[in-house]
């Protein structure tokens, strides 16, 4: 029931769920398949395996049978215990790592192709801002990397969007942790990427700042509507932001469960205080606790 038709985990034999079918343009809507139509307008990992060589001829199976589709304009959150391979999934989509077998396609192309076209945005837990560059030149970096002239209006618009007006000339070391992460997210957004990848972007922040950043990201996302994958270990964060939450289990990493989140947006305190929200939090948290033992 929880499984949406977009996902098939190898271990699950889900009945097709037609409820989700009309949610996204890319859906087949038919009941004879639990996968999407082969459409160039989505992100997909198909039958992906990843093995890491740990030396002396020994290998570690990091990911098995990962099948995951993200429809255009969809926000998917990937949660799981640490070491379950969720960041590896993100690195495969970012073209920072390659699969041992299986296919990764972003809108009909391999990930390297998208980064070559400067169509990927990424933010990590470490902000990775250039320490010598001001807020606005850090946000302008993707233009310079792409060899394009900097669109000053777009940069100013993003500075406003992430709430850093007045800090244009500030250096990263003069900003708080939360502000640095906002700059990193603005940098990821500035070229209007086809796919936005967020790897625990708020993982190093304190709880209060983190919640505030969650609602800000929700607001930003509702304005930009980008296809997004968020990797996190924070269940609340995933539920506040995502259309679907994918739960992974570890050793080896595989998809354990997929939860479609039908809660209304914006998911401010009026939503996060409802029993429905708490029920989802409890359900997914329970899965995370169990996931470590590999069900």
């Amino acid at each position, binding site marked *: 029931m929880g499984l949406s038709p977009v996902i098939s985990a190898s271990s699950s034999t889900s009945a097709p769920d037609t409820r989700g079918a009309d949610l996204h343009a890319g859906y087949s809507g038919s009941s004879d398949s639990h996968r999407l139509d082969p459409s160039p307008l989505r992100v997909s990992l198909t039958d992906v395996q990843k093995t890491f060589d740990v030396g002396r001829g020994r290998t570690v199976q990091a990911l098995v049978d990962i099948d995951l589709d993200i429809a255009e304009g969809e926000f998917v959150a990937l949660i799981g215990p640490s070491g379950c391979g969720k960041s590896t999934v993100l690195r495969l989509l*970012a073209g920072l790592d390659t699969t041992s077998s299986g296919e990764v396609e972003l809108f009909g192309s391999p990930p390297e192709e998208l980064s070559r076209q400067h169509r990927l945005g990424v933010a990590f837990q470490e902000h990775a801002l250039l320490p010598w560059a001001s807020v606005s030149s850090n946000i302008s970096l993707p233009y310079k990397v792409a060899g394009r002239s900097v669109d000053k209006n777009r940069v100013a618009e993003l500075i406003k969007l992430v709430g850093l007006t007045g800090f244009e000339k500030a250096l990263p070391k003069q900003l708080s942790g939360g502000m640095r992460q906002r700059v990193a997210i603005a940098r990821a957004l500035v070229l209007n990427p086809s796919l936005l990848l967020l790897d625990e972007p708020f993982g190093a922040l304190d709880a209060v700042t983190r919640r505030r950043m969650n609602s800000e990201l929700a607001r930003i996302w509702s304005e930009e509507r980008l296809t997004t994958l968020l990797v996190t270990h924070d269940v609340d964060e995933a539920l506040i932001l995502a259309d679907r939450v994918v739960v992974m289990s570890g050793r080896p990493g595989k998809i354990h469960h997929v939860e479609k989140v039908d809660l209304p947006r914006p998911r401010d305190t009026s939503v996060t205080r409802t029993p429905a929200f708490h029920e989802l939090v409890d359900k997914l948290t329970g899965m995370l606790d169990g996931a470590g033992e590999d069900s």
Partner: protein
Amino acid sequence: MNTRKLTKASYMVSGVVLLVVAVEVIARLGIAGTAWPSLVEVYEFLGDERQRSTLWRNTLVTLESSATGLVMGTIIAVLAGAVSALVPILRPGLDRFAAIVNAVPLVALAPLFITTVGREDSPAVVAAMGVGFVVFVSTTSGLANASRTHHDVLTVLGANRFRRFARLQLPQALPSIVDGLVLAAPTAVLGATIGEWFGAPSGLGMMIVSAFQSANIPQLWAVALSATAMALIAYFIFIAVQRATVRRFT
């Protein structure tokens, strides 16, 4: 607070005074032989207007050779470091070449330079050799300093190697390159002086040779003090540059 500063300064002054007095006492007693300088004699030597102007003229010559060597060595080293970062296949070869060239004693190379670049220019070239190795090592290590996450961000953004170099690696390497210059600046003075030993028409190195041949100990040490002062001034200038760079680039 001021008392503490004062205490610190008084320790420094008494250290210097103690050193000067010890040197003078050893010279007067003749404990260390006739080559040990008496600072009073060195001071008297420098009191002579003619000697002073000769020393100053030759100091300027060595300064020019050192500065030329420092600039040349730095440019060549940074370019070589850039090549090794941009064309990774060349990196091991460049590293080994630099290590080998550095292992050859400068004294052995100096005659070679006299026959190739001439007496006038070989001090600058010898200085550049010494500078080059230090700056090359600090450049290549600086260019490798950017964090993995920074590289990942640039990879995802689709940076080619030249833009990655210009936007990330080079600015990241600047503090390390300046660290190299702090060490290289005194090396340049030393290199230029050694280069002048082998028949240069002027310069502190030439003066050392002539003082040595005429057993003119006060002249020898006046020259040595001049070279030391130059190396120290260069060192402190680059320490200041280093502070500024670290403030700006980290």
